[in-house]
């Protein structure tokens, strides 16, 4: 579905991403992991053409991304950013409805159909009860759901997530990730998620992409990527890797100085 063909990108002199190639199939759940500054967020931004790579190409269902119009991309790819600040307090419903905007063209107002789709998205994400509340009265976990609902209202095929669980407590983390997993499994949405939490990535993603200084260090299923050797090489710190006692997926534990 998405083919990334040896892309390289730089803001100024230095390359931030170099020769990145991978494919994401329909319905796949892919995790981007790597240290700070390894290029995860930049890669996500390139995937919805906020940035354009200087070299290489991205194909979306065999069509080059750079030849697609803005609204065409918005109908296929939705993004949930780390944190969205709104200058003035819109209501939850109003924000979710903005997800319909790629479909409205020159229309000034949403149609009945758009309201239906927005309501469905709010049902999925269980935020319908506070549809009329202003966004700034919601908790962090609820706000995240609002932006997922907006992404769903875009009726996309791919959702890009940037550090979705940052700043959430474990209850909201697991709620949120389970919601994403449901969307992935039941709606067949392709998910590409950048995350600092390797245990979450290992548990939820089908495949992982480990980035180091803008290059792919390793790509594969979690068992292949999250190994003691790989993590110590890329992050430069000692870790302990064993298996999650319930799921059997690789699990990372941090080591305090002197404990071995």
């Amino acid at each position, binding site marked *: 579905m998405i083919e990334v063909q040896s892309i390289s990108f730089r803001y100024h002199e230095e390359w931030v991403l170099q020769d990145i190639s991978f494919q994401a199939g329909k319905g796949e759940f892919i995790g981007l992991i790597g240290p700070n500054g390894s290029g995860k967020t930049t890669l996500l*931004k390139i995937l*919805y053409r*906020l940035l354009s790579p200087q070299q290489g190409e991205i194909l979306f269902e065999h069509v080059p991304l750079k030849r697609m119009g*803005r*609204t065409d*991309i*918005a*109908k296929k*790819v*939705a*993004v949930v*950013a780390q944190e*969205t*600040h*709104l*200058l*003035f*307090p*819109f*209501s939850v*419903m*109003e*924000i979710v*409805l*903005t*997800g319909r*905007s*790629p479909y*409205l063209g*020159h229309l*000034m*107002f*949403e149609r009945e159909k758009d*309201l239906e789709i927005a309501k469905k998205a709010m049902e999925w994400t269980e935020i319908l009860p506070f*549809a*009329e509340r202003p966004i*700034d009265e919601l908790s962090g976990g609820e706000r995240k759901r609002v932006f997922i609902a907006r992404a769903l209202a*875009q009726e996309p095929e791919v959702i890009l997530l940037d550090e979705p669980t940052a700043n959430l407590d474990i209850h909201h983390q697991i709620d949120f990730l389970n919601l994403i997993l449901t969307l992935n499994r039941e709606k067949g949405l392709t998910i590409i998620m950048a995350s600092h939490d390797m245990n979450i990535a290992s548990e939820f993603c089908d495949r992982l992409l480990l980035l180091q200084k803008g290059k792919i260090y390793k790509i594969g299923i979690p068992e292949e990527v999250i190994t003691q050797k790989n993590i110590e090489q890329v992050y430069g710190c000692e870790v302990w890797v064993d298996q999650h006692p319930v799921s059997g997926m690789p699990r990372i534990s941090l080591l305090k100085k002197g404990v071995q």
Partner: protein
Amino acid sequence: MKIVTLKRVIIVSILLCLLLILVILSSVTVGSVKVRPSRSITILLQSILGLKGGGTETEQAIILSLRFPRALLAGLVGAGLSVSGAIFQALLKNPLADPYILGVSSGAAVGAIVAILMGLSTLSFGLPLASFMGALLTILAVFYFGRQEGKIHPNTLLLAGVIIGSFLSALIMFFISVSQKEELHTIIFWLMGDFSFSNYQTIRIIFPYILLSFLFLYSRARQLNLILSGEEDALQLGVNVENLRLISYLSASLLTAASVSVCGLIGFVGLIVPHSVRLILGPDHRLLIPSSALVGASFLIASDTLARTLLAPIELPVGVITATFGGPFFIYLLKTRKVVKTL
């Protein structure tokens, strides 16, 4: 569910139009020469319908050639400044932004002062024309210096606007310090906002600019909502942000230029009207733009009516009234942060 629909926009607009009509009718009725309310309304209606008669000739003259054009002009300017303020607040993502933030007003002032010093203010539209040119030149300069690599960055533009504005303010100070006593009075009145030059000709000149800019900005109202949550967000929802920004900045600047050129610098309208409307009707531009226009028109007509009647026969600059009412209101805004989170 409470969202902005076409129906809601139409209902709110009709209600606010009724308010505006009421304000215009009261405005043409009160003044130093007393005209009975029923008679002033008859005179106005008959003239609009093209009928003759009603009232004495003096009454007709006062209402039709003095008070009515003055109310119309104040209404146009109030609408222009309010919409322009709402747009600048959204584009610069700054709740403190007002129509003058990019220095357009200082450019207009320099143009006006030059015209006054050269004696052009006695011509029927020498003053507005000169200040309009001053404002346009300033807009061009701000956009020329405020771009980075051909793109508009709100902060760079803001900086360019503020710096050019300060430079022009220095020019204004210079002109004031070298001008004669009689010119000084005209200059200071202009700087505080003054509708006493109103006539149908100025209305005809600025009306197309205000109408076109308004229509254009309104056609982009839905996209302007998206830009409030940030450039990246708007882009990922399919908005051509670069294009939207450039054209909206230019339209809003044009609105400001057209407004200030006919009446001088009237403060606070462009700041408080959009904020008050947001408080009551929400931040959606599809409702905010037309409502701000209508509320701004009513507010400025009412302020101007007070300005010319409070101490009659002395006429106060309308800026004194808007700031007297605007100042306390703005402090109230600052104290109740509910309106704007980021202040």
